[in-house]
């Protein structure tokens, strides 16, 4: 079978290909230009840094989500884990009363943060084991986790926000707000943390065995397994990493607000998924990059903040973000899943006898979209992403 996509794509298509591939970047540039024109306050260092620290929370969730999406899964529990870990950190900082001994234990800030983050990872581990070991559909496993974890956060706090996490000199647990307020070389700590994690994940994805396994697992799990990829542990690990990222985001959010609300992070999982999708990752797995996901998170963040800045109602923000997501998915389809005239490669083998006879017509398309199409767009459609 010769492919139409790779074979006959002439040079003039390169421009549209470039436009599609760099759509997240172009969208971000467009947002910056438009809002700069509409508001003089948009393109100032100060505003950019403030917006970036907002973005950092979502970007962390999106990065964890990206790994899960690369395996072809989805993690709906990230928002709940964010809220839960924030509450845990708050709970620890306000003191753990040990009634048995009549004392109250005040863990130090690093200890509280560490415990909360480890807990986030542990929740991710449960997700991972459910999905990889017990074959629960990722959507269902993490949906359950979304509810359970949110419920625990509400139970622990009776639904009330834990305020005043600044600690007490005498107890030696001050400094929690450092993450949220401090700046290093003028850059908010949260943004730096996001940058470091993004860098680490980029290296992991691009330059390590685990990263290669991850892409392979998402691209074709069965083939990966037969090639010796430990598919199960790879799957478990991505959920653990997603849980860890959510926990870090939860800590940063609690630190920024110096309070921990049990409802923090509600619906953030959707924003996280949106960031991944806008960043060009395929929900069917195997395709996506850290760079794209970061851009996706910035597109959503800058769009929301920009709309606030020029005084557009919060309700309109929702509409805009939704529209951007749909356009992003449309462009993803153009890049990965354009329906081809030629039959899929499996069908191309006139498989008498042993072949998969391909059901009765429509049942054929059971595979995830884009799984069988060669990469690279061949659609001469020079529309810039808007």
């Amino acid at each position, binding site marked *: 079978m010769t492919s139409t996509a790779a074979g006959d794509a002439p040079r003039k298509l390169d421009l549209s290909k470039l436009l599609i591939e760099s759509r997240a970047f172009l969208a971000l540039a467009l947002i910056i230009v438009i809002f700069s024109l509409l508001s003089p306050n948009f393109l100032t260092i100060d505003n950019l840094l403030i917006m970036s620290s907002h973005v950092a929370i979502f970007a962390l969730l999106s990065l964890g989500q990206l790994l899960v999406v690369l395996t072809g899964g989805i993690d709906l529990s990230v928002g709940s884990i964010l809220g839960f870990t924030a509450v845990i950190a708050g709970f620890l900082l306000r003191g753990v009363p040990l009634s048995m001994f009549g004392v109250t234990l005040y863990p130090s800030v690093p200890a509280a943060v560490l415990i909360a983050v480890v807990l986030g990872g542990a929740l991710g581990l449960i997700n991972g084991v459910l999905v990889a070991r017990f074959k629960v559909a990722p959507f269902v496993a993490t949906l359950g986790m979304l509810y359970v974890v949110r419920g625990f956060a509400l139970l622990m706090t009776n639904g009330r926000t834990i305020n005043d996490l600044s600690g007490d000199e005498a107890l030696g647990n001050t400094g929690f707000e450092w993450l949220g307020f401090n700046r290093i070389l003028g850059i908010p700590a949260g943004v730096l943390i996001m940058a470091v994690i993004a860098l680490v994940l980029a290296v992991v994805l691009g330059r390590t065995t685990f990263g290669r396994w991850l892409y392979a697992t998402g691209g074709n799990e069965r083939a990966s397994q037969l090639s010796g990829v430990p598919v199960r542990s790879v799957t478990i690990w991505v959920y653990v990493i997603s849980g860890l990222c959510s926990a870090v985001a939860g800590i940063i959010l609690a630190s920024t607000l110096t309070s921990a609300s049990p409802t923090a992070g509600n619906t953030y999982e959707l924003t996280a998924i949106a960031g991944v999708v806008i960043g060009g990752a395929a929900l069917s797995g195997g395709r996506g990059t850290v760079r794209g996901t970061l851009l996706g998170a910035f597109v959503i963040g800058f769009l929301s903040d920009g709309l606030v800045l020029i005084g557009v109602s919060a309700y309109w923000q929702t509409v805009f973000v939704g529209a951007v997501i749909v356009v992003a998915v449309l462009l993803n389809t153009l890049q990965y899943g354009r329906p081809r005239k030629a039959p899929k490669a499996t069908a191309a083998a006139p498989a*008498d006898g042993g072949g998969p006879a391909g059901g009765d017509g429509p049942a054929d398309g059971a595979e995830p979209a884009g799984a069988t199409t060669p990469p690279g767009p061949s659609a001469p459609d020079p529309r810039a992403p808007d």
Partner: protein
Amino acid sequence: MNTAADVTTAEGAGSEGGVVLQARDIVKTYGGTRALKGVNFEIHRGEVTTLFGENGAGKSTLMKILSGVEQPTSGQIALDGEPVTFATTTDARDHGIAIIHQELSLAPNLSVRDNIFLGREITRSGGVDFAEESRQTAALLEDMRLDVDPSTPVGDLRVGQQQIVEIARALSIDARILIMDEPTSALAAREVEILFGIIEDLTSRGVSLVYISHHLEEALQVTDHAVVLRDGSMTARGAREDIDLEWIVRHMVGENFDLGSPPQGYAFGQSVLQIQDLTVRDPENAERAVVDQLSLEVREGEIVCVYGLMGAGRTELLEAVAGRGEIAGGRILYQGGTLDGESIRERIAMGIGLVPEDRQRDGLVPTMSVGQNLTLASIKQFLRRGFTSRRAENALATSLITDVTVKAPGPGVGIGSLSGGNQQKVVIGKVLATRPGVMLLDEPSRGIDIGAKAEVFGLLAQRAREGLAVVYSTSEIEECFSIAHRIVVLHRGRISAEFGPDAAKADVMAASGEVVTS
């Protein structure tokens, strides 16, 4: 009628049953591959026409075109003399053409009645008239001599019964032409007889049948006409009374393509792979052993061909060695050590490589490039201080591309842009990159053209010379007589016979159950 000069027509091919459907000059190309090269085909009213041909000869493609699953690239179809086109399966169905696929298309969770009326429920005052449906279903089942309640879930029926339900469904839409693709491959002998009884009934009612089967003798029992396809062309046709088994085999196989010969001039090394009393059970039916107490030994440098029909246990045997699926009994030794409890990953590290049967499903990662696919199982080889080195990876991928002669502009191109043969070479290259001691190939030539086939076999012969033990399976008789030093015939999970490279084709086919006697 005789348009192609090289078509053999057995005498008296013209028959009293009129032609109900005529396909003329049917060409079907997939990308660059011509699956059908101008085939002429006729279906006679109230008679059975059997299509013979090896895998890849174009039988299924032709049937897909006749049933509207796919459209011909060129050519005409005439039904009762009127030209027709089938854009969809529904189109074909409306013209009275129904196909029963090898893999049944029933919904196992629904009842027999619901399956039969799926998508065309009988309604009365807005609701489904279950009573009427049940009545009609019961009548149909009685016709088919199938004694089951219409409300039984299809999943609870045996495969043979399901097949009959599928036939009943086709008849319930007044199918005039019924295409059966390998209907007996999953049936027990008794069920085959029932099926043949039904076929007789159908033809006496004027239904025309197209029958496809690898079981030549079986097909000869029911057929009225034979059409033989080879390599996308029709090579012969004839009426039942003018043909025999030998005639079919001769036209199916044709002249020998040169697929190489067993590499000579060296002695086999020591025994690398020992399979002892291996039993693997059917995951869907624990009663049935798909591999039944099978023992096999392979030595360094030896090439063994495992020949068998569909369902003989070829795939299960090779997958058990590679570490997929559970072993119910027996053991497998590699270089004297047992493989019990070793994962696929560990087995690859030890030196066992599998090239799976379905390369799209099990062999390739479609989202990755040619290079990434080639190196997927040997990432370690391009790690430098724990990180992948792009340069080392490229070097490895490029050398593999040369080794297995993949025709690709470079390691960076998408795997989907390669032809079937080159994709297969990539899968083989991926396994070779792990430096295996024994290489298992499950139908390595499936869906690739003859040239690529010869190249793949050449590659394996060369590796065997260097000490690699090769086990490949095939369901195509001519491939047994290529590079294999030894031909092992599987029949119902057991080795029914072993042959040397100079055995007679008919003997090998007989041992596989394809031909009972010859």
